[in-house]
């Protein structure tokens, strides 16, 4: 092994430890008792090993309900984004209509406005619509995203026009062309967006915390934060809850990582 290689592995090792460390600690803490969590020095192997944190979450708290809420919201947002962004991106890349450039820059412009700035107007708007504390508040405003539209548009700009012309000569209309020819080509982008959007929605905290008020409507991250007390925090419970939040994400990423990396690199070129 050359010296450069050794150094590379060392750096990667350090980075892996920094990334994995907190995760492993959380995992271990979720199987510890309250006393063991705050014991010094901290240990990696939970002793005594207990499943009580998990049973507590499932039995005493509406944890499954929160998980369901999170799944429904993230599911709707993900599916909607994957398709609606694709349609918008395609329209901006290919259809000729007056004002398309202006529209595109307006969409890009919205990415430059921090979410925090619009919290109050969005809240007022949604409360006037009567959507506060409902799924609608967390899905409808998030059905599309400027970044997603941009990503698709860049991809579609690179698709040769002759493909659409061939489809036209094959007798396909605009919708058939889009769904049978264009969209299948965008699979890597779709997968990347599915992951981005699912993660964003699943991990989202600010908007759900703002827009939800009854515990039955909480998403996982909001529910989890509710047992951070003012004076003390039951870290063992929080970490068990965190495992519920993390596990699906890890599974999704492992399944889609191939596409994910492809999709990210797609946005880089062209």
């Amino acid at each position, binding site marked *: 092994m050359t010296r450069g290689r050794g150094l590379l592995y060392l750096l990667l090792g350090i980075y892996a430890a920094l990334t994995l460390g907190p995760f492993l600690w959380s995992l271990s803490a979720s199987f510890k008792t309250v006393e063991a969590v705050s014991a010094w020095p901290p240990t990696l192997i939970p002793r005594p090993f207990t499943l009580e944190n998990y049973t507590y979450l499932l039995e005493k708290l509406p944890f499954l309900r929160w998980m369901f809420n999170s799944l429904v919201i993230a599911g709707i947002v993900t599916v909607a984004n994957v398709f609606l962004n694709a349609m918008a991106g395609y329209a901006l890349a290919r259809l000729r209509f007056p004002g398309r450039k202006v529209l595109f820059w307006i969409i890009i412009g919205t990415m430059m406005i921090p979410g925090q700035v619009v919290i109050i107007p969005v809240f007022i708007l949604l409360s006037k619509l009567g959507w506060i504390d409902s799924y609608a508040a967390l899905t409808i405003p998030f059905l599309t995203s400027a970044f997603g539209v941009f990503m698709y548009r860049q991809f579609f700009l690179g698709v*040769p026009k002759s493909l659409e012309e*061939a489809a036209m*000569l094959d007798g396909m209309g605009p919708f058939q062309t889009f769904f049978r020819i264009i969209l299948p080509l965008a699979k890597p982008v779709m997968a990347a967006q599915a992951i981005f959007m699912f993660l964003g929605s699943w991990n989202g905290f600010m908007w759900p915390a703002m827009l939800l008020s009854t515990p039955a409507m909480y998403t996982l991250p909001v529910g989890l934060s509710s047992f951070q007390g003012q004076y003390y925090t039951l870290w063992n419970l929080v970490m068990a809850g965190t495992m519920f939040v993390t596990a699906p994400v890890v599974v999704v990423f492992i399944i889609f990582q191939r596409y994910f990396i492809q999709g990210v690199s797609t946005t880089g070129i062209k």
Partner: protein
Amino acid sequence: MAAVQFKAVTKTFDTTVVDKMDLQAREGEFVVLVGPSGCGKSTSLRMLAGLETVTDGSIHIGDRDVTALHPKDRGVAMVFQDYALYPHLTVEENISLGLKVRKLDPAEITERVASAAKVLELEKFLSKKPGQLSGGQRQRVAMGRAIVKRPEVYLFDEPLSNLDAKLRAQLRIEITRLHRRMKKTVFYVTHDQVEAMTLADTIAVMNEGKIQQVGPPMELYRHPKNRFVASFIGTPQMNFLDAELDGLTLKTKIFSLRIPDGLATEFTDFPKHFTLGCRPHDISRAAAGAGTAAMSADMVEQRGAESFLHCVQDGVSIVARCEPEDAPSPGENIHLRFNLARFHYFDSETNERLVAR
């Protein structure tokens, strides 16, 4: 009846790309549109396909006016320069998709795909994706996609320009064979005049949005109607010289020739100054003598079977053909004889042909 007719077709984007184009093809005719890039040939083909709208005029296929018809209703199939195969579908799906969209009977689809695959020798590749095929194979798949539709008119848009020289020659022959078999009207666009000459029943030479001349390849070669066609058809390009008539003597900067009495009548209406055209194949090396041009050989282009001499004298450049064994060495002084019987004459102002032959 699948004759094709362009009637005063005009296409304007920001500028006029095709200008009052009139062109007819008989049923089963192989028509090649040829010209430099930007001459409007591809736009014409795309208007025929229905991929571009027509600004003015009309296009007819058979006895139907197709000017306003959707591409799919025109009875045409097109082969694109970049093949335009659907990358996510197999060869078989690529070929059959158009038929499935038209909701043909599945048994009929299978039969048509099988017969096209056989003709094009694609049977081994039916389950492959386009990405796994070579350029030549991809272009055959593109042709298969056109064939199964059994169109009245085939459209080819520079289908061979992405292929290497060897494959191009091979596919040229395949396309000719295919045409003979299908007996359908073909419109074929290329910028390559060799392709035009070898494939066409009829060539239409275009320049700056206008058709310059329409005719069989050899007619265009022998009797180009203007200087543009003369220079575009034939390689190496025709030589052009400023010339003038002095009685019955034809004078250029590098040689003078006496016009034989028998030909004198042809020159009666000639302007004093005009342009003379002579193909490299009508110029040969000769011993010094009356009517020859003394020139200096600048460069020798070896083609194997023949050689082309690039000669200069008094600011005039001439390309002449000679046998490889007669090729001079660069810098050598030589004499060239020009074959007066094969001369072409063009008006220096209008560039139109002077003698109608």
